[in-house]
């Protein structure tokens, strides 16, 4: 420390990560695109104030408003009931992104809990990993479809059709997609558990709960972050697949997947009704995947600073 003035300023880890992330041109473009899409669905409805479910009560007007081509009043046209497609796209995007995010949170919560328990407590390891293996061997798409069919009415009766479907989809996707996160976290915890700082914490009598919360969880954050990003993309796809197969949200509660499903009936006459939602799903998922890729590179200390 003799040459004090030449010392570099201390840098935080997240600043390093950001600097590395900016190197990844694809991820930066994806981040920009994703923010644009997020602004479209979050801020959009505040500017474009048309109710996505508004059907003109006057039948003559309603029939005149049906299936209109793009105009200044309706930039993307109207659908077969005279509803504004732009407003429906914004509203649908909100639901799709919300489903993706919440389902990812559910999956990451279950996965991290099981991964930490399995990695930290030797006795639980065998059982929990057997459980994980079993879930990995389940045919997930058929099971999801079965769950949607069998439980849709029951949940709708309890909390109403919209919230019921939302909760059911989010829980179903979360419960069937936590396994990779659990495996990654378990591997990390197994390695971290043998490190000196955990030994030090344990030797001064820190209880297991606090070791996990204070010392282990912050250190598994980076792989969990990457898994979470990729999880959003997977959840959005799964939700739209369910909607596409007609087992997702009801028609008055559109998501991008549902809009696409509704558009297929009229694909010959109005192909744009399939193109817009499909494009929105694809761009969202593509950008989220690219962001995940860039995050993985940025969070990997072996690559960082190269």
């Amino acid at each position, binding site marked *: 420390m003799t040459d004090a003035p030449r010392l570099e300023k201390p840098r935080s880890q997240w600043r390093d990560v950001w600097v590395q992330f900016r190197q990844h041109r694809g991820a930066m473009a994806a981040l920009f695109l994703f923010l644009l899409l997020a602004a479209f669905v979050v801020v959009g409805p505040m500017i474009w104030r048309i109710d996505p479910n508004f059907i003109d009560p006057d039948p003559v007007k309603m029939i005149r408003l049906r299936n209109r081509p793009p105009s200044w009043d309706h930039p993307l046209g109207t659908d077969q009931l005279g509803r504004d497609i732009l407003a429906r796209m914004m509203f649908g995007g909100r639901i799709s992104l919300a489903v993706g995010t919440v389902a990812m949170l559910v999956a990451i919560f279950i996965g991290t809990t099981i991964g930490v328990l399995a990695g930290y407590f030797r006795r639980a390891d065998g059982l929990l990993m057997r459980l994980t293996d*079993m879930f990995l061997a*389940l045919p997930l798409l*058929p099971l999801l479809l079965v769950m949607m*069919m069998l439980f849709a009415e029951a949940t709708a009766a309890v909390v109403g059709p919209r919230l019921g479907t939302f909760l059911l989809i989010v829980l179903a996707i979360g419960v069937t997609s936590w396994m990779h996160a659990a495996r990654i976290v378990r591997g990390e915890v197994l390695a971290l558990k043998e490190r000196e700082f955990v030994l030090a914490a344990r030797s001064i009598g820190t209880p297991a709960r606090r070791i996990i919360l204070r010392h282990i969880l912050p250190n598994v954050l980076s792989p969990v972050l990457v898994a979470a990003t990729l999880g959003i993309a997977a959840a959005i796809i799964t939700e739209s*697949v369910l909607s596409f*197969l007609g087992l997702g949200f009801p028609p008055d509660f559109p998501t991008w997947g549902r809009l696409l499903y509704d558009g297929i009936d009229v*694909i010959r006459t109005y192909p744009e009704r*399939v*193109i817009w939602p499909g494009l929105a799903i*694809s761009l969202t998922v593509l950008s989220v995947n690219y962001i995940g890729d860039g995050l993985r590179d940025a969070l990997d200390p072996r690559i960082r600073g190269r």
Partner: protein
Amino acid sequence: MLTFTLRRLLTAIPTLLLISLVIFLLVDFAPGSPMSDIPLTVPPEVRQKMMAALGADQPVMVRYLLWLKQFFIVEPQYALDAAFGTNFADGAQRIISWQSKVPVFQLIGERLPQTLTVVGTAYLIGILVALPIGIYSAYRQYSWFDQAGTFFAMAGFSVPTFFTGNVLILIFAIKLGWFPTIYDTNLSVMDWDSFVKMIKQMALPVTVLALFNAAEISRYTRSSVLENLNQDYVRTARAKGMTERTVLLKHVMRNSLIPVVTVIALGMPTVFGGAIVTEQIFKINGIGAALIGAIHVSDLPTVQTITFIFAVLIVVFNLIADILYGILDPRIRYD
């Protein structure tokens, strides 16, 4: 190797049993079963008879064990009988679809060929496209070819198949009119004309599925080849004066394809899952369409059986992948 195989086989049995229990109970305990859909105007004794006719008045465990017995003992017996003209089954009760009152396995037997033709061809083409792309991407890392390959792969598993499928229908079937939009299941290949017709109707679904598969496999191939390119034996081979061609195609490829082979085996069941969506887009009358149809009318035996067949496929292909890995890479064997 034999003990390794045997041990893997033995661990697969409890997994399968557990999965079958999970699937059976999930479907059975769900509130939306057809038992609850019998109208209230039906008198109780008739309702009793209806339940008894469907076998639904037995306790859950009895029905589960009966279903297991039918799945693992009775149905293979019928298969043997049909193949060799024997009489093992002796008229035992089979798993009957509630919707069409025919044995579920007969239904599956009718649907499976369509699925296998489309899915099999698509997987094969996907692999054939993915391997060269993956290998060349790794060999020329960060070149424009690699960048394009990365983008192609990213797009391949980001763009959902139901969108690519519909875009292809829109362009090639509706606008250009080159291919039919609907898959004709009754078409049998007899001569050149029907063969051309078959190729035409398979072109779009196969393209959609192949694109999706190729994206994933090419990524795995690329990373596996990349890992091997930095190994010492590659430097040795080059130092011996071997041509790049021999180094890449003989030395590197043999080693780097080992994990790819297992990924290909592991991916098989997922492909069947993806075929559910593709069959829906192109109206292919395959096993996925049968599942969706059965789900919409709450045909529980069919749903349980097809779902469990998917589970069996996953477990079997996991087993195949493990054993293949053991055969191809002697370092992996645990014995």
